[in-house]
């Protein structure tokens, strides 16, 4: 979680908010039955949406904070819901409250980027820095404004400020304390993105529904079936396709991080320029990514991280070995 630059000590390295000012926020939604017991619909193959939102396992919690900068590590823990997080002052919902995004899926961005919201799908992570000193004595809400009414994916609507899901209320009521973290605006650089190189092969993956379950390139998962082999110490381009207007899929690729080369033909902008390990594949999207494999061999999966799709065969296995193959549509 830490290294010599991202040190876990806000007086050294990149000087990011640390200790009790570095807080994971694991967001999920659950269904409860009339007895208050957790309920998971095992007959639903589309995706499960909860009607209660939990942050770090608590329903609609509040969090008393000091008026200073915090690093908040957002994780969409699913099982099927996507989130678009905003900070909202419910007494003034029309006021935009910007914050800083510093990472994607655990990888620091080239530098902090000021944003007004963060959109993540299941298993995606985003670290943000929020300066609560501007809200001293007040409350602000972590709000999901993305609308999603079934397990298939969000419907594209963003609800008005204040009318979304109020996930966590920050009460900025604790006394002022020292803040040794650096203002994100003055951090010129974390890391450059790794350099690209020509791919050894470009492979295409279609994520689709077929025969009542979930397929990649028309096939179901079989963990004994090595769908393709990667030659160690080489780079590849992968094209992730969703030919459906009905479903969205968070695609998680194990073992190596990747970079987005293009999304629907456009180069990545802003926070999309980063290393990642989950790719949100929206309606009818085509995303090309660059992946470099190091000198490890072994067996790894890639899969949709909508847990229900993942459990119903939208997964495949690939191996890294000495020779690899050139299968362009595994």
């Amino acid at each position, binding site marked *: 979680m830490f290294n010599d630059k991202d040190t876990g000590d806000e007086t050294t390295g990149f000087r990011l908010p640390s200790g009790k000012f570095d807080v994971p926020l694991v967001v999920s939604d659950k269904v*409860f*039955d*009339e*007895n*208050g*017991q957790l*309920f998971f619909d*095992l*007959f*639903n*193959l*589309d995706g499960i949406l909860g009607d*209660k939102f939990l942050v770090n396992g*608590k*329903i*609609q*919690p*509040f969090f008393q904070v000091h008026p200073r900068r915090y690093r908040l590590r957002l994780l969409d823990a699913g099982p099927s819901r996507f989130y678009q997080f905003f900070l909202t002052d419910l007494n003034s919902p029309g006021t935009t409250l910007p914050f800083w995004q510093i990472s994607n899926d655990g990888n620091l961005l080239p530098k902090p980027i000021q944003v007004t919201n963060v959109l993540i799908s299941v298993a995606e992570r985003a670290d943000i820095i929020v300066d609560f000193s501007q809200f001293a004595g007040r409350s602000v809400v972590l709000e999901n404004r993305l609308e999603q009414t*079934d397990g*298939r994916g969000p419907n594209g609507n963003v609800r008005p400020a204040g009318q979304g899901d*109020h996930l966590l*209320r920050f009460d900025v009521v604790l006394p002022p304390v020292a803040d040794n973290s650096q203002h994100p605006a003055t951090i010129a650089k974390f890391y450059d993105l790794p350099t690209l190189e020509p791919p050894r092969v470009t492979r295409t993956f279609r994520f689709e*529904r*077929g*025969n*009542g*379950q979930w397929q990649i390139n028309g096939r*179901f998962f*079989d*963990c*004994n079936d090595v769908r393709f082999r990667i030659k160690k110490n080489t780079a590849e381009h992968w094209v992730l396709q969703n030919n459906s207007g*009905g479903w969205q899929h968070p695609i998680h690729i194990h073992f190596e991080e990747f970079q987005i080369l293009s999304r629907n033909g456009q180069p990545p902008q802003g926070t999309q320029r980063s290393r990642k390990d989950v790719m949100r594949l929206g309606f009818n999207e085509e995303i090309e990514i660059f992946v470099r494999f190091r000198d490890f061999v072994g067996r790894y999966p890639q899969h949709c991280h909508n847990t229900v799709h993942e*459990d*119903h*065969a939208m997964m495949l296995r690939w191996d890294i070995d000495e020779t690899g193959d050139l299968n362009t549509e595994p």
Partner: protein
Amino acid sequence: MASIARRSLFSRQTVRRSSRDAIRARYFPNVVLRTHEDRPVRFYDDLIKDKVVVINFMYATCEGVCPGITLNLARVQKLLGDRIGRDVFMYSITLKPEQDSPAVLNDYVAMHGVGPGWLFLTGDPADVELLRRKLGFVNPDPRLDADSAEQIGNIRYGNEPRQLWAACPGLAAAPWIVESLSWLYDERARPSGERR
């Protein structure tokens, strides 16, 4: 905010119903079906209750994925050996009850080398449609939902008293289907981890 949620969730006024009953009420209508041996059976009482079961949908004249899935399930039946009819019960329900009479299904059974412990079932079309929807053999896209091939790819399997239910593709490797089933009837075969 938290206190309101807690009151409604954990009110002592709530009528307590077992989760097994809740699942039964939600998914297992006790409709009367007829077996390929022309015997009437009630779906919950006779086929599901207290059993580990494998359920799929098919129809006799289906030429697409059906024959492959029936053959695959026949492999599953062989691999399960004498557990079929004792530890595991297999049910194939026709999507076209108008044309698949018990006699038609009986011919299908003979043609596909289906052994004892695996029933093919027909019934009133409205009951069969209710079962299909309740058991989740559905596609939210109405165009695809009307395509029988979309409803035929799945296998449901479960342990009714333990309330464990899952699904896998009908064309999944037969040994894997058998292994997944073994987790339902044999505690020792379950992969590592806590007993659910």
